[in-house]
């Protein structure tokens, strides 16, 4: 999942960055812009949807009506945002509901309230969430064993740590900086895609296990 941050565009068009990221394998784009008036958010999300051209899912952060009006696939609810149950009552099955969670209790509660997926953070220190308390791989493992719905991990995810995240039980990763700050968003997305899709291999076997011939 790519979470957009227009402050990190560095003069590029958000539509171009999204297109490149989707070319590289991003399959969910979350439009997150808290400073925009409602109509402007709909316009932005619509432009992003057109750039995606059906090759990935579009989520809008926070504004359910904007998600509906922009023709998004889902709405992502921040931890401090509207309650999942209320949004579900509003949209029924028309939108996928994703919820940001930072704890086991929040995760369990969101699942009970019919969230379709969770974005769990902040896993590792992240410039996008300065000062946030991090939960590390243990935090990811603890939540993933408690809920059945997909858990996407966010917070300082890079190709170097993405595979560990998947092994901890996450269904996917969400990034801002790893793609937005890259000079080549497509390549950055590809690197992440490769990292999370890599099959478990020799290097993943815990080091304490006896090996033949040792």
């Amino acid at each position: 999942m790519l979470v957009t941050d227009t402050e990190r565009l560095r003069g590029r068009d958000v539509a171009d960055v999204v297109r490149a990221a989707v070319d590289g394998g991003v399959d969910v784009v979350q439009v997150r812009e808290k400073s925009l008036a409602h109509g402007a958010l709909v316009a932005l999300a619509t432009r992003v949807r057109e750039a995606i051209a059906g090759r990935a899912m579009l989520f809008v952060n926070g504004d359910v009506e904007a998600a509906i009006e922009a023709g998004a696939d889902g709405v992502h609810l921040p931890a401090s945002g509207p309650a999942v149950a209320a949004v579900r009552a509003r949209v029924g099955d028309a939108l996928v509901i994703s919820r940001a969670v930072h704890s086991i209790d929040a995760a369990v509660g969101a699942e009970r309230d019919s969230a379709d997926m969770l974005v769990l953070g902040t896993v590792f220190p992240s410039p996008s969430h300065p000062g946030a308390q991090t939960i590390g791989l243990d935090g990811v493992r603890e939540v993933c064993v408690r809920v059945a719905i997909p858990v996407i991990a966010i917070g300082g995810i890079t190709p170097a740590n993405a595979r560990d995240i998947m092994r901890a039980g996450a269904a996917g990763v969400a990034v801002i900086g790893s793609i937005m700050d890259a000079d080549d968003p497509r390549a950055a997305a590809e690197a992440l895609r490769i990292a999370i899709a890599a099959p478990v291999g020799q290097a993943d076997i815990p080091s304490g296990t006896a090996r033949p011939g040792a």
Partner: protein
Amino acid sequence: MSDTLTIAGRQFRSRLFLGTGKYAGPEQTVAALDASGTELVTVAIRRLDLDNPNARTELDYIDWSRYTVLPNTAGCKTVDEALFTARLGRSVTGSNWVKLEVIPDPKYLLPDPIGTLRAAEQLLSEGFVVLPYIHADPILAKHLEEAGCATVMPLGSAIGSGQGILTLDEIKIIIENAKVPVVVDAGIGAPSDAALAMEIGADAVLINTAVAKAADPPGMAAAMRKGVEAGREAYLAGRIPAKPYASASSPTEGVAAASREKAPA
């Protein structure tokens, strides 16, 4: 003969630009824009009503394909806020046009001349087409023009005040020296104000409150349209100068001689 206005390569037949804030509701906005014949509307893209974050704004109602939609940096008090909002506006509209406002003062809503120049220079270097809102300062207007702005937009009087063109002399000086279009923006209250701006040679006017808060916004929009057209046609037709003495409309010489010739026998 075509009297189109060209701004940054784009042509406009209407010299009336409208802001889209402060309307009572969407139907009024749409009807007023329609009645005005405008081809360019400004929109605030920032969330300004924090208590009601999902409130519908004018952006939800206007037909984006019908107008040049010009995002403005309304609500921005500093250079950094204006830069951020301008960049956001580019993401939202896909266009690099921006109406730049840097307004730190909430009482008079006066634009910060230095902040505006700094923000304009930065945005121009990022490839924006910048239309800056300023007090009617001829030197500032020149700096912004030389920096590369597409227009200058001097105020007639304070935003929303309806006081009309209080800066007439300064605007005349700006018009005299400008090589880019001059758009009089802010303070227009009635069509006579809009006509006056056009009569002295402004290239266009930008009006918001005078239409949005009129008792009948679409009616006022139609009237403003006529005011702008009348003022522009008068400018092109070349008005007479104002003189401090009378100049009779009919000749008085020769009348006495003719009446003497016709004296009854």
